[in-house]
């Protein structure tokens, strides 16, 4: 029904963001998943292959932005296309917020990355569809800090 987990990996397989919305995974499983998913996705050919790949009982919807893979895991019956679109929505917000986002921004500002994530998704559900609203709120929250 909703996203099971969301991952941002770089091409070397280093995690830049990891968020589990589904609490049914053990620590060992989580570590194994990240490794396996990186291997699976890094080996795929971006040009000729779709952005969807089946993984265990889940479907991974992913997209590569420069050196980073944005990956969300959804149920097999959920709509791949709209989750792909929502990933793009998330990235667009990051891009505006960090003003041409790059990997280093995410490395040093990982807590902000999570804060943005929490404004876009709640418990694995998309909660806001207006880019401006998210950005407005983030700007305000930064002032409060």
């Amino acid at each position, binding site marked *: 029904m909703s996203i099971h987990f969301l991952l941002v990996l770089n091409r070397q397989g280093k995690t830049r963001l990891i968020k589990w919305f589904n609490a049914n995974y053990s620590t060992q499983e989580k570590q194994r998943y990240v490794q396996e998913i990186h291997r699976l996705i890094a080996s795929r050919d971006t040009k000729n*292959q779709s952005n*969807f790949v089946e993984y265990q009982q889940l479907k991974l919807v992913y997209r590569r932005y420069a050196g980073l893979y944005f990956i969300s895991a959804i149920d097999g019956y959920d709509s*791949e296309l709209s989750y792909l679109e929502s990933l793009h929505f998330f990235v667009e917000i990051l891009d505006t917020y960090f003003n041409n986002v790059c990997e280093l921004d995410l490395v040093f500002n990982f807590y902000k990355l*999570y804060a943005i994530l929490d404004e876009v998704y*709640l418990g694995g559900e998309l909660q806001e569809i207006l880019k401006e609203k998210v950005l407005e709120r983030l700007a305000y929250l930064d002032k409060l800090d």
Partner: protein
Amino acid sequence: MGSLKSFIKAVRKAKTIADERAVVRKESAAIRTSFRDATLDQTTRRINISKLLYLYIMGEKTHFGQVECLKVLASPRFADKRLGYLATMLFLDENQEVLTLLTNSLDNDMQHPNAFIVGLALCCLGNIASPELARDLYTNVEKIITTNNTYLRKKACIVAAKLVEKDPDLSEFFLQKIPQLISDKQPAPLLGASKLIQSLYYASEENRPALIKTIPSIVAHLKRVTTSGYMPDYDVMGTTDPFLQVSLLSTLRILATDEQCPAEYLEQVNDILTQVASNLESGKNAAHAILYECVKSIFAIQSDQSLKILGVNILGKFLSTKDNNTRYVALDTLLSVINIEPLAVQRHRSTIVSCLSDGDISIRRRALELSFAILNDQNIRVLAREILVFLEGSADSELKPYATSQLVIAASKYSPNDKWHFDTLIRMLKVAGNYVTSDILSNILALILQCNDGELKKHAVTKLLSSCLEDMSQFSLSLITIWAVGEYGDIVLGSNIEVNGKQVLVDEKKILQLIDDLINNSTYSENENVQLISYILTSILKLSIKFKDSQSIEKLRLMLNSRTYDSNLEIQIRAVEYQEIFAQDAKLKKGLLARMPAPPVKERESLSLNNSSNKKTKSSSSHGSAGTSTTEDLLLDLMDDGGNAPGASTTQNQSDLLSDIFGNNGSTPAAASQTKNSAILDLFDTAPSVPAPPPKSSSATAIPAFNNDNIKVSFTPKSFTQNGQALIEAQVDSNASSVIEHLQLLIAVPKTQKLSISSTSGGDSITPGGPSIYQVLKLAGKEGAKIKLRVKVKYSLDGQVQEDQFDFAGFSQTL
């Protein structure tokens, strides 16, 4: 301890993994120590939590920070709270016990005057709520869900949905808010409301009637969004508010598929689906996402025929786009639609087939599956051709075994005529002979065996021969060809075949050449080679009675002889055995090496009498060659159910025939069955001159134990491992003229041994002439002990209960 930034830099500076580990371990230890300090100031605590967050992302252990997070978020400062909640959501999940410590903070924060702090608490609850937290805090969410603040309302909707998932009993509190929530016109809260409806729907059946009533409002929202025209704020690449549309559509789908959904609502849903589907300009991912959701709904609900066709056409349009993602979902959906709308899907056959050569393997796989799904007797010729082209051109070794198996099944189901069937299969062997599974192989062999049309058989064998001569690298093709040449060499000798465009006469030399080439072919794996050589040996033996020229026969003998030194035991044994048979006189060999009978077809067997009598003569000739283990192997290969078929129900038959063949027993057909069985024992005990009987069949020989007017019991030693364990199979046959019912085998062994009996095969009754009953006995005892059984057989015959008892110690082997 340094700042967060310097820590991240230190980690990044590490050149090797070992360096990085060292930095991480040092920092992690320092954070642990500082947490133990009771006088820790808030700033250091914050820095430490931030560092822990970084460690979390790196996949390190962070559990020791859980309580510290709770301390930070209890602070009145907003910045502290923000970090505290952030860390809590990551370090904790609903399974942690410390979660109970969070209840109070969440309760306080959800009543805070600052909307952002309420937002943080809501977000945290939505992410890591446990059923207990859900029950403790739902009243707060209930209050917030009716607030005027859209920012909080949308969050509360989603959190409510999560709470209902955790504890379905909470639905009653949120169900009553639905009418108000769904009348909201702002997209974000509407999105949350839509999610809440879905959760409530799945939480309990009682909720459903009330939720179905929201259909008109959802339809109205969709209508508003689709007809509103351009809205710059909500625009995604030219499509208005795709996320909301997708969410509303999927909610609609769930509600409209409910059985209680009234017809008038269904009609509304039908209308809005048509409207959404026809109003959209396709071309962009966002639009495709909506259309895709629409199509899914069209096929999920009871929709009009015209709407269904519209749906398939949208998918057809998807298939022809350049975007891989769109094509992927189109194929995926078509696969699920094929059962609902087979004809409409058929129309897109050419597009589907063109996806077989797509660059993406997951698209190819779906296209292949779909191709087989739309296959029927009308299009088998075209599609089979396309699939063969796919098999020839593609490098997907993982898809090929699937494709060959499916093609064989489809061909036997829909083939327009036998000739086409053979041609297709042979072509398949030629293009993908290395990707055929063994059961499919035996299917094809059986097909050739079952062919009664002499001309067609000849056609098939010559075709095999010419294909194999053209390409010897396809294992299955070689295997089947060499087998066919051995079986039917005589019918192709002297005919002309075309190899690579040239006419070639099939003579004995050509066949010898083929055998030689196959033996020397080195493209197969070790296992394949052993199998192929075994087939070749059988073929050589069979050809020895089909060849006329004494020189060629001599060559065959030499080939066979050379294998008696083979390093592989299986081949060597076979070659030595065959050598013996080879040296027998022609008359005996003719009987031994006669053609294989067609394997029985299960359905036919029980249906027509005519066939069963045919079968008898056939099966007798099959056992004519049972003296050679290969043919028996082949037979086993051919029959799917392999197992105990030859050794079991036909034991009687076999002993009879064997004695006939070897001629050292005068048993006439009229002789009592008892003597027949002992004859076979005699045969194996006292016949040194007989071509070595295969060890397999001797170990599987049944030893008769008891025989009276009603029943016959025999035991077959299955495995004697000589370590105190033995497996024995008991076989009970009927001698009576009527049905034996309620058969029970009670067996006792000496006290020093243990016996376990499996349940019987089949049932507990035997019809006269019907299959025997088998039961496996497992014995365990002292090593070297002799096996003694006391057997009591209970059964009822003609309504009378009978009992027979006997002792048995006839096994030559010991435990």
